């Protein structure tokens, strides 16, 4: 009895610690930010005034905010689709047990463990005008002159999409691999006996059975891109001409370049609400799909 009570106390202590950390590092900053969003807080002023909903109404006419939201949502949609498609493909290729496949699984996950800043610096050396990609393509004669991979709004969007997809595909591969390995072998055996192979087996057996993995992978991919800051900050800095400015990047610029912490907090609240709505909607739809399958 004493040992059980002691164990329960230990667990309660750990739970309290976790709850405390959650409150201090997540809930409290969130509440402070919410309060700030109703003020004209400026990092260089000692006092702030309550401005009611002014920051929220201002957002309606903010062209930069609108552009950043369009960019962020476009990137989120593109990256989520691409990273999950790649994740499924890689997972199927790596769903073997030999040592070489286990090594390749580790390699596939590598981009996910690298810091976003390091990833962006590495890709910058590849994608700039004098970078490795242009050097290679011009040397072998595919391009006559270097292409501005980061120097035009469309190319920069696609370049960022490729880099973030590369990073996230490590995560999605691992999720889909786990989902594939949870499919009972009997199902595959039965499908073989029924003469179901290849694409048909993927469509009728594999795809429905990895639905829980899809829900997790798609939701986390979306949330990751909706709050993306580091890779874009290093790779393009939001340029050219703010065309790759994510909403997270815009928030930081508002707060520490334009000195508008109050307005930045309001935009952060909008991003939080948007992320929540998107994540809940997508999760709900994918969960319903799991049940229907």
């Amino acid at each position, binding site marked *: 009895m004493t040992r059980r009570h002691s164990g329960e106390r230990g667990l309660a202590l750990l739970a309290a610690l976790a709850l405390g950390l959650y409150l201090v590092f997540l809930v409290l900053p969130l509440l402070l930010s919410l309060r700030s969003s109703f003020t004209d807080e400026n*990092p*260089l*002023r*000692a006092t702030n005034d309550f401005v009611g909903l002014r920051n929220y109404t201002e957002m309606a006419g903010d*062209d930069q905010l609108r552009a950043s939201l369009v960019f962020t949502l476009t990137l989120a949609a593109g990256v989520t689709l691409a990273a999950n498609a790649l994740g499924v493909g890689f997972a199927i290729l790596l769903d073997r047990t030999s040592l070489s496949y286990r090594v390749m699984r580790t390699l596939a996950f590598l981009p996910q463990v690298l810091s976003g800043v390091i990833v962006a610096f590495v890709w*910058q050396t590849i*994608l*700039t*005008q*004098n970078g490795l990609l242009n050097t290679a393509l011009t040397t072998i004669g595919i391009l006559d*002159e*270097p*292409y*501005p*991979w*980061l*120097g*035009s*709004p469309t*190319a920069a969007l696609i370049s960022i999409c490729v880099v973030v997809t590369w990073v996230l595909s490590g995560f999605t591969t691992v999720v889909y691999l786990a989902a594939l390995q949870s499919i009972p072998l009997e199902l595959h055996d039965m499908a073989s006996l029924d003469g179901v192979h290849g694409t048909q087996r993927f469509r009728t057996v594999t795809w429905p059975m990895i639905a829980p993995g899809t829900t997790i992978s798609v939701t986390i991919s979306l949330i990751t891109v909706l709050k993306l800051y580091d890779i874009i900050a290093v790779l*393009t*800095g939001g*340029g*050219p*001409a*703010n065309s790759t400015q994510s909403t997270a990047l815009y928030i930081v*610029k508002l*707060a*520490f*370049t*334009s*000195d*508008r*912490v109050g307005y930045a907090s309001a935009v952060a609240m909008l991003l939080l609400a948007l992320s929540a709505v998107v994540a809940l909607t997508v999760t709900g739809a994918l969960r319903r799909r799991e049940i229907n399958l």
Partner: protein
Amino acid sequence: MIRKPLVAACMAGLLALTTTAACSDGSGDGGEGGATALTYLVFETPSLDATFWDTSIAAASAEVPGVRIDKIVAPSTDRDAYAKQLQQSGQFPDLLQSITPSNFVGAGLLKPYDKTWIDANFLLPSANTLKGEVYIPPTNSQIVPQVYYNKELFAQAGVTAAPQNWAEFLDACAKLKAKGINPIELGGADPFAASMPLVGIVSADVLGKNKNWLQDRYAGRTAFADADMVTAVRKYRTLVDNGYFDKGALGVKYADSITRFTGGKSAMYPMGSWFLGSVPKEKADAFGSFPWPTDDGSVVVPFVGGGSMAISAKAEDTALAEKFGRAWSLNPANLKALIETDGAFPMIKNKTLADYGVTVTQVFEDSYAYVTQDNNKVSAIGWATNDDALPPGLNDAFYAAAQALFTSDDVEGELKKLDDAWKTAAQ
């Protein structure tokens, strides 16, 4: 048996450390041998690297007994934004290198230097004046931008002399392009570098005719949408439309733009005079410079009073901080390094270039002549740190406009955005 005492010892150690940290008031006491610790925000560039800062701090510290400097390096060259983040988290540095004082003075965060000392030591004591006070000693100055050119590429294209006016500049560009030489280098991937031609055009054409344009803008007497500004900015579009920049210039990083220009990939390079520190010594004679050309050929020099560090009004010992700031500012070794590596033009009284023991190139001396000559010096828009500094956020908007105008012909639209951004910033 062993574990419990070990865990207890670790916990005790952690507790002791935590208690020590909690009891510390962060006031800066406790330096080695009773020295007062001051935090000093610096930034690193290829020219001003960690060694430069460490050496310069050591040299100035040696002249100020009782001080210990704790260096803080900004994560990027945007030290203003980092200083604001530090302020927001209650860690505003005691000394701040090359910040924009106008961002911080309104909040009472900076302490001005003693004017008698400023007047006694500097050639242009008012170069950095903000509302009558000097927060950064004007130890040196920059021209932002000048146009640097490659004499060999000019000769290849039949351009026999540096352009004296806008028409000659366009003519030189046309001849260079006809010869298959990229006329103008632009490190457009870095917003500040992308803005250089626009800074040159606006400073020369608009501020060159009305030195008080920025003060008038603050007073609402001028606007970016004004006809003279539109006409000036259209000249930038002329350069773009005629293909005088590399098509992929917005993908070129600032650092790459330097190597491309010095490597002979482009004939001209509008850049701040800090570029002089990057001119290859072994072929320095191959490069020349001229001021951004005006329509009538009159010389307008977009000028920035550079300098050293600002002092936090919140520093525990502001007198000691000012002593350190003075020692650093007047230390000839620091100026020597700044002249040689950062192309800084020294502005300390009663000293010639020779007094610093520097070895400078001819193109440096030619450029420096524009500082010492009596000519039309105006504030370089977006770079001035005195009363002509732009309001917070406007620099970014200006840079973005420069990048946008590389791909868009909507000059009026971009200038309206600047007026809108000014209105928001001024609220």
